[in-house]
């Protein structure tokens, strides 16, 4: 009797190999049945040993091995093991053939036992060879698998990092969006402030002058009040003297009273003239264009500017020349707006000559005569171009340096010390002239003066 060592070894190898495969590929539902298969193999062998019977059990071995081989080959999940399992087929076939031959014709088997044993031996070597090569392939595959696992891990790490980065990017984007919104808000506020500033500049250029002029009115009004008070006192006194019969004194008092009346009248008219001049400018701005005599408009604002400055600073003095073209036709303009533009040019001219005068303190003050020239002219139509009216304001101040010449019409550009100018005067004048379809030009020679010209098409 020979124990079925070979079938045991074969069945153990097969089941073990499958178990290993199942474990590495995480096919859990196979683990338990494979344990039973191992157990069964051992049990079969044990049965042979215990019952000393191989004649029956070897057939069970055959059935068992064939069952394992057929079963394993049929499983789709184990398809990668097919090559390995196929290697056991020759062994099983030869041993089965041997046993069958022995059963049918024992003599024939005994005569040819060597062949059968050799065939079984070769099939065993065959299994060993297949196992060896399979093992190598398996190891390579295992390496590949580990490599892939590493890559997967790497990819997973990258994916996690990517998610983190995306969160970071989203945070940054949110921050930036918030900052952008804040900036936009600030910008809008700045724009609103600028609009307000332009508006207040419109008021300021005129308002400052009228404030000065209001003080100028105060002086004659004070005289009117004071002299009329004095006259009341003088009249009382005169009545007293009349009662005393002191006629010489009465006559002298009457003369004083009459003189005072003249003074009241004079100062009353003085105040009246100033108020009349102002009223022309404080008319509510209709924003409507009307036909306007440019000469009269320029002259009004020239006087306004002059008196406004003098009211504040009587040491301010300037020679004013006017050259008005009397043949000018009326121009359709918004008088308050254009007046403001002209006013800005004139106050700038006054400022310029006053600044230059500071360089000539007494006794050198005879060396420089501050002069502002306001003139108007008609530019006849030429070569398809419409005719135009020109108003120019020229001063003999310090002029404008070449490098700032192209900036002077920009909002907030000023050469005046902080607090003295808003830098909106010329920009405003420029806008007003542009809105009238006209042009505002500047011509300046440094050290000699500047000339600003408004050209309005008619």
């Amino acid at each position, binding site marked *: 009797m020979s124990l079925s060592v070979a079938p045991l070894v074969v069945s153990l190898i097969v089941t073990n190999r499958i178990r290993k495969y199942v474990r590495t590929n995480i096919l859990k539902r196979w683990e338990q049945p494979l344990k039973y298969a191992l157990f069964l193999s051992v049990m079969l062998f044990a049965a042979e040993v215990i019952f000393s019977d191989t004649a029956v059990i070897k057939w069970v071995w055959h059935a068992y091995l064939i069952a394992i081989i057929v079963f394993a080959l049929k499983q789709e999940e184990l398809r990668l093991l097919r090559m390995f399992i196929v290697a056991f087929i020759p062994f099983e076939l030869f041993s089965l053939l041997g046993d069958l031959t022995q059963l049918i014709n024992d003599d024939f088997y005994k005569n040819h036992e060597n062949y059968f044993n050799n065939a079984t031996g070769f099939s065993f070597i065959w299994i060993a060879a297949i196992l060896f090569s399979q093992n190598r392939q398996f190891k390579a595959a295992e390496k590949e698998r580990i490599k892939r696992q590493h890559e997967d891990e790497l990819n997973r790490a990258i994916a996690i990092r990517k998610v983190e980065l995306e969160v970071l990017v989203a945070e940054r984007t949110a921050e930036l969006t918030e900052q952008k919104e804040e900036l936009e808000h600030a910008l809008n506020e700045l724009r609103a402030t600028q609009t307000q500033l332009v508006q207040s500049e419109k008021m300021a250029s005129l308002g400052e002058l009228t404030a000065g002029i209001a*003080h100028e009115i*105060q*002086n004659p*009004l*004070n*005289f009117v*009040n*004071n*002299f009329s008070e*004095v006259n009341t*006192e*003088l009249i009382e006194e005169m009545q007293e003297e009349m009662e005393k019969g002191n006629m010489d004194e009465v006559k002298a008092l009457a003369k*004083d009273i009459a*003189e*005072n009346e003249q*003074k009241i009248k004079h*100062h009353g008219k003085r105040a009246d003239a100033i108020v009349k001049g102002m009223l022309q400018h404080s008319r509510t701005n209709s924003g409507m264009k009307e036909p306007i005599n440019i000469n009269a408009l320029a002259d009004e604002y020239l006087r306004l500017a002059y008196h406004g400055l003098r*009211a*504040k*600073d*009587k*040491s301010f*003095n300037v020679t004013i020349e006017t050259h008005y073209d009397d043949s000018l036709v009326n121009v359709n303009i918004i008088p308050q707006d254009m007046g403001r533009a002209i006013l800005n040019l004139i106050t700038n001219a006054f400022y310029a000559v006053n600044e230059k005068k500071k360089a000539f303190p007494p006794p050198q003050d005879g060396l420089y005569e501050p002069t502002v020239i306001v003139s108007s002219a008609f530019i006849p139509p030429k070569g398809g171009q419409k005719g135009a009216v020109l108003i120019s304001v020229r001063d003999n101040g310090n002029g404008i340096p070449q490098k700032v010449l192209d900036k002077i019409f920009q909002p907030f550009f000023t050469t005046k010390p902080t607090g003295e100018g808003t830098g909106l005067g010329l920009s405003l004048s420029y806008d007003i002239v542009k809105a009238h379809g006209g042009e505002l030009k500047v011509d300046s020679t440094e050290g000699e003066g500047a000339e600003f010209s408004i050209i309005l098409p008619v």
Partner: protein
Amino acid sequence: MKILVVDDERDIQTLFEQKFRKEIKEKQMEFAFAFSGEEALSYLNQHEHETVLILSDINMPGMSGLELLRKIKEKYLKPPPVVMIITAYGDEESYNKAKQLGADDFLTKPVDFNYLKERFKT
């Protein structure tokens, strides 16, 4: 008592002479008039010790009232004349400047003559 009034408005002379005619008649007060800061200084040079009170406007052509005040306080230390500044501008800047330069009083136009009379008496 001699008072120098400095103002570029010439009618101020008539006004003061009539307002204070009783005092002038009774020789309680004597007025002198200057119509600019420069004129006031040349007057003071000639009549230094006679003048005890100076009334000055601020806004005048040429030398301003504040400049005049500065010069008076610098130059005429003994006896120091009383300088009162009168101005149409009651603004704080002028007030502070005047006080800083040593003005003894600061009045705003229109002048309250009754107040002025009270001040002259003291």
